[in-house]
């Protein structure tokens, strides 16, 4: 739908607008899910990470399990680096809020490489600064 101007949005559409669910809003139910756990639908989140390049060389998407395994934890950490989030490897609220945002369909990591934060050297990712007094 095109709205030539924001004022052209019909009133009958607006009352229902708060009920609109985004394509990934269901991921918010994984909040607090930890490595080693199993949760129904987690395979869909793995598909998400696979689609945007965070789970490389994976089997066909239908083969993803609902296990919070090392592969998923690694993907979450890489995602958190790329988006300047706290690198916890967990599905915390901040990370899930970001994952469910609308976004460009192009992958962040192509063929395993990226120039986003996660593709830069470790020293550039470090938050620790070392100084020497001269």
């Amino acid at each position: 739908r095109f709205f030539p101007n924001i004022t052209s949005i019909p009133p009958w559409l607006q009352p229902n607008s708060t009920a609109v669910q985004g394509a990934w809003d269901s991921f918010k139910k994984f909040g607090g899910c930890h490595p080693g756990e199993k949760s129904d639908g987690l395979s869909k989140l793995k598909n998400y990470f696979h689609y945007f390049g965070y789970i490389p060389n994976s089997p066909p998407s239908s083969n993803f399990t609902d296990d919070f395994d090392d592969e998923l934890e690694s993907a979450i950490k890489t995602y958190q680096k790329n988006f300047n989030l706290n690198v916890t490897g967990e599905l915390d609220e901040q990370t899930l809020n970001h994952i469910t945002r609308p976004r460009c369909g192009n992958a962040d990591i192509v063929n395993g490489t990226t120039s986003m934060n996660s593709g830069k050297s470790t020293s550039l990712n470090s938050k620790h600064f070392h100084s020497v007094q001269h």
Partner: protein
Amino acid sequence: YSYFPGQPVWPESRRDLTYAFDPSNGLTDTVKSVFTSAFARWSEVTPLTFTQTDSYNGADIRIGFYNGDHGDGEPFDGILGTLAHAFSPPSGRFHLDDAEEWVVSGDVTTSSLTSAIDMESVAVHEIGHLLGLGHSSVEEAIMYPTIPSRTKKVQLASDDVQGIQSLYGANPNYNPSSTSTESTQQNDTSDAH
């Protein structure tokens, strides 16, 4: 900023690019003008030029709105989720999800429609891909991968300008002071920041 693997760019012989809209979409001039504005933001900082043409098949850049599976192996997913995608040079394919609630003009941040997406913001981002830029981790950059609904972000950040100028050089008339670092207006209540 980042590039696609292999750093593909439009060749030296193709720096005056044409763009066209899929005739089957029947887009209005108002909608088309949004893309004209978006292209202008990139031509302002580079020697590249962009001219609209009616010859869809002959255009360097081909723009279309599609639903779901539209034949390129990258199906759209309905409202929100993925908004659009574009291919690296010299493909020129630029696809937008027809299912979105696209706001063409006006202050999208005041929309009562929580899923409203500002069309020009997405267009400026995707044109960056068409020219060879990948995603950036700099949140202020146009090439940052996500954009909340009801957000307008159309001005190139210094990260975007550095990235594109390293590929094509600078527009001789470019004035660096015109690049804003505060380019985002946002009214997103879905995130609890």
